[in-house]
């Protein structure tokens, strides 16, 4: 099936219809690339799951009280109000990314550009909030306590994903402005970028609950 479609596309291309040829090849490879990208997201779920289960195990089994004791004193809880604001910033960026993609699909370049800009600003704002929280969290640093170790490892891993996501979105934005890689029919890179951004949002839902609400 795959070979016949590719062959058909090749023949079309040879028949002076390069665009149709490229379209067939794109449609053929899009599903495979999408499946591969979903598998990549699944592998990231496994990565975060292993760290999350380690945290849950430590919290429920190893530490007698939570937050744990350090130097004879119980560590304070994290600032939920600030984290709630930061969470809304990240979730908001997920919505703006969705509307950016919708703008692209409907050939509304203005909507796409504005919402991409909002997404990048909100994503960067979330990273700034994380940096602020790291500087002010009184939980003993990375190696000072079991709380600090799990918090900085998990949120650090997530923050790294957000950072990569921001770079990814900037590259996508640049590609849409400077290249002809995407049009209203072919925009797999933008779809993948949107899925990735939603994914980092959803990981934060779990981390927000585990570290601030539990």
């Amino acid at each position, binding site marked *: 099936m795959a070979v016949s479609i590719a062959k058909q596309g090749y023949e079309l291309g040879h028949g002076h219809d390069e665009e149709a040829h490229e379209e067939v090849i794109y449609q053929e490879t899009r*599903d495979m690339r999408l*499946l591969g990208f*979903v598998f990549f997201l699944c592998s990231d779920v496994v990565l975060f799951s292993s760290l999350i289960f380690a945290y849950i195990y430590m919290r429920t089994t190893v530490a007698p009280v939570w937050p744990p004791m350090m130097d004879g004193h119980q560590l304070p809880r994290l600032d939920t109000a600030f984290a709630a604001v930061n*969470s809304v910033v990240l979730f908001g960026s997920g919505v703006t990314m969705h*509307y950016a993609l919708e703008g692209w699909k409907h050939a509304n370049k203005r909507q796409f550009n504005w919402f991409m800009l909002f997404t990048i600003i909100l994503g960067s704002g979330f990273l700034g909030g994380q940096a602020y929280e790291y500087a002010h969290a009184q939980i003993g640093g990375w190696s000072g306590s079991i709380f600090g170790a799990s918090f900085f490892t998990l949120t650090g891993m997530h923050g790294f994903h957000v950072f990569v996501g921001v770079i990814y979105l900037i590259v996508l934005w640049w590609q849409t402005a400077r290249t002809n890689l995407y049009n209203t029919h072919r925009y797999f890179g933008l779809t993948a970028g949107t899925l990735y951004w939603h994914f980092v949002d959803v990981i934060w*839902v779990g981390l927000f609950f585990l570290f601030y609400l539990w």
Partner: protein
Amino acid sequence: MEGLAGAEKVIALIGAVVVAVFALISLKGEWPKTGLDDQVTKLLLGLMALGCVLVLLATTGVLPRGGA
């Protein structure tokens, strides 16, 4: 600090409502679509709306932490 925490809670509360509404509107728009990317998007948008609900519960003091 208490005043600041109160302002943060109000901002988070309003923001969570706004984001949840737009997430649900987006989810409704995606609902009829059936592609793999559309299905994943539906799942992720739904979970994002759940995240907004968690923020709402935290800022209103329903959850154990009470948005402290």
